[in-house]
C-alpha cells in the first residue's frame, strides 16, 4: 500500500516529509508527498502526518547539496516555493531517480523523466515570477520614510526577492508585502532582512504616503506615457510582456 506523507506548505514541512519518505526506503511508486489542505483523498493509501523539524529539513538540504550538487539544489529550492500542490512529490521523485543514474549531479539533464521535468518546470515558473517582480514591483515612500511595496505573487517568492533588494537598497528601510501568502520581507537600513508572518502591521499605515510621493508618481506616469512611440502602438505586445495581474500595484497604470 502506498504511503502518503502529509506536511505543511513550507520548506521545512516539505523537506521533513521527504526525510521521512527517504528514511523508509520505499520505491517511488510506494510513497508520495502531499500538502495539508491540498489533498485529493485516494483510496488504499496510508496517510501519515509528518512531524516537522529543522533537523530533518537541514539533513535533506545537506543530502541534496552533497549528492545532487548546487545546481540541482538551486532548482529544487525554487520548485519548493511554487504554488503547485504536487511540488513535494516531484522533488522526492527527482531525488529517488538521482540515486539510479551513474552521475547523480547530472539529474537535472534528465528532462525525459516526468518528475525531473516537473521540478524543472516549477523552478522555471518560480524563477520567472521572481524575475518579473524584480522589475514590476513598486515601492512607495510612506510618511515615516519607509519604502513599502505590495505584491500578489502566485508562488512564495519573498525569500528570492529580498536578497536582491537588500543588495540594491542597503541603506534604506523597506518592506515587501506578499498579500497572497500574508508575509512580509522587512529590511532595516544596514541590517539583515527578515521574514515576518501574519497581521504584524497596521495596514492603514501603508496608505499614508510621504508628501513628495504624489509628485514622483506623476513624473513617472508622464514619462511612461511620453516614451511610447505613437506610430508603433502595440497594446497586444505590451500585454504579452506585462500581464494584467502585475499592474494593480504599478503606479503608471493607476
Amino acid at each position: 500500500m502506498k504511503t502518503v506523507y502529509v506536511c505543511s506548505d513550507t520548506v521545512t514541512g516539505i523537506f521533513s516529509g521527504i526525510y521521512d519518505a527517504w528514511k523508509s526506503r520505499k520505491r517511488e511508486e510506494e510513497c508520495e508527498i502531499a500538502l495539508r489542505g491540498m489533498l485529493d483523498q485516494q483510496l488504499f493509501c496510508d496517510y501519515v502526518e509528518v512531524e516537522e523539524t529543522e533537523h530533518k529539513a537541514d539533513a535533506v538540504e545537506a543530502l541534496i547539496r552533497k549528492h545532487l550538487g548546487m545546481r540541482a539544489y538551486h532548482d529544487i529550492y525554487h520548485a519548493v516555493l511554487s504554488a503547485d500542490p504536487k511540488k513535494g512529490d516531484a522533488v522526492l521523485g527527482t531525488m529517488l531517480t538521482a540515486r539510479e543514474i551513474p552521475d547523480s549531479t547530472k539529474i537535472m539533464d534528465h528532462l525525459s523523466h516526468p518528475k525531473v521535468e516537473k521540478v524543472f518546470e516549477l523552478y522555471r515558473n518560480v524563477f520567472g515570477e521572481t524575475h518579473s517582480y524584480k522589475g514590476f514591483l513598486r515601492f512607495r515612500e510612506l510618511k515615516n520614510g519607509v519604502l513599502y511595496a505590495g505584491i500578489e505573487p502566485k508562488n512564495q517568492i519573498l525569500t528570492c526577492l529580498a536578497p536582491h533588494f537588500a543588495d540594491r537598497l542597503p541603506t534604506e528601510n523597506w518592506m515587501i508585502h506578499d498579500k497572497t501568502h500574508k508575509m512580509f520581507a522587512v529590511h532595516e537600513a544596514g541590517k539583515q532582512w527578515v521574514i515576518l508572518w501574519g497581521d504584524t502591521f497596521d495596514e492603514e499605515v501603508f496608505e499614508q504616503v510621504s508628501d513628495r510621493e504624489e509628485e514622483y508618481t506623476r513624473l513617472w506616469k508622464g514619462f511612461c506615457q511620453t516614451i511610447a512611440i505613437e506610430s508603433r502602438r502595440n497594446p497586444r505586445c505590451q500585454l504579452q510582456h506585462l500581464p494584467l495581474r502585475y499592474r494593480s500595484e504599478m503606479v503608471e497604470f493607476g
Partner: protein
Amino acid sequence: MRIQEALSMYDKLNILTDAAKYDVACTSSGTSRKSDGTGIGSCEQSGICHSFSADGRCISLLKILFTNECIYDCKYCVNRRSNDVARASFTPDEVCTLTMEFYRRNYIEGLFLSSGILRSPDYTMELLYATLYRLRRECNFQGYIHVKAIPGASPELVQRLGFLADRMSVNLELATAESLRALAPHKTRKNILTSMRLVQNRMTENKQELTLYRNAPRFVPAGQSTQMIIGATPETDYQIIQVAESLYQKFELKRVFYSAFVHVNNDAALPAKTGEGPPLLREHRLYQADWLLRYYHFRAEELLTEENPNFNILFDPKCNWALKHLEEFPVEVNRADYKMLLRVPGIGYKSAVRIVKARRLGTLDFADLKKIGVVLKRALYFITCGGRMMYPTKLDEDYITRNLLATGEKLPREVREMGYRQLSLFEGGWNEDGICVQ
C-alpha cells in the same frame, strides 16, 4: 527656436523624454555588480525590464536627453535646429534627483543619458560628465548607466566619461557615409568611427589594467553599442548586415540596434511619407539576422547576396537560408554537431544545448525533442531521429514552402494583408529590449 523660461520639472521631463524616445536601446544588460553596502544600486547580467510602454517596448532605463537645444540639423530628427519645437535642458542636479528617486522606488534599472549638441560637442560632453560624476561620486549611485559619446568631442572627455558609465554608445545613424552626408550635414562618418575606435581601444587597455590590478577602475564594463536608422535611405538589408558584421568584428561592439525610420519631419531629402508607418517588419528581420550573426555562427554573405539583397517577408532569415540550402539537410539530431543543429529551423540555441546534453544519456526521439522545446512543425522537414523523419516529406523548396505557409504559424496578419503596420504577431522569444528575437 523656442526656449521657455521657468519650465516645471514635469514639463522638462516631458520634453526631454519625448525628444529621446526614438533611440531604440533601453537595455540594462551586460554587466553584473553588487552594491558595496554604502550607496544605492546594483546591476544584473541579464538586465531587468521595469515596465512596458504602449508600443510594447521594454522600459528599463530613465531614457532622456540632457538637452534638445541642438545646434545641428539632422534631417530625420525631431530636435533638429530648424524645427519649431519646445526646447529644454536639465541641470546635472535635476538628472541626479530624478534618477535617484525613480531608482529607490524601483521604477528603473538606471539612466540612459543622451543629448543634443548644446553649443559644441565638448561643451555638451562636459555637462554629461558633470552629471555622471555627481551621480556616481556624490549620490553614490551604483545602478546601470548608459551614456552617449558625442562624436567630435575631445578624446580625453570620452575617456573620463567612460570610467563612470556601464555602457557607451556612439550612433552610426546611417549605414553608409553618403547617406550620413545627405541627412546629417553636421556629422561625419570619420568623427563617428574615431570615437568608436577610441572607446574600443580604451576598453582593450582597461582589460589589461584589470588583469594587473583587480581593483582598477572599470571602463564601460557593459561594452559599446550603436544604432542605425532603417528605411530613411536606400541601403539594402545586405549592406546593413555587412556593416553590422564589421562593427562586431572590427570594433568589437556588444550590440548594434536598428531603428525603423519614423517620419517626424517633412523634408525633400527624406523618403515620401506613406500610410504604412515605420518599416517594422524589416527592422524585425534585421534583428533576427543580427541574432544569427552573434549567436548562430552565420556570416552576412551566407544570409544575403548582391543578387538577393533583401530579406524574405514570409520567412525569418534562418528559415530562408535553410530553404536555399536543402543539400545540407536532413540533419540527424542524434549525431549532428552543435553548429549544424543551430542552423535547423525550429531549433533555437537553448534547445540545441539541451539536445547535445540529453543525447549523451540516450537516443532522442521526436517526443523528446518536443519536451526539449524544439518547434517540430518547422523542424520536421529538416531533421531525422534515429534515421527516420517524423512524417514522410519531400526535401523540395516549393513543397516545404507551401507546407510551412499552410500551417500559418509565423505568418503575420500584416504580411497576409501585405501591409507592414503594427506587427503584433511575432511569436518567439522577446529579449529585454522588447525586440523579438527567435
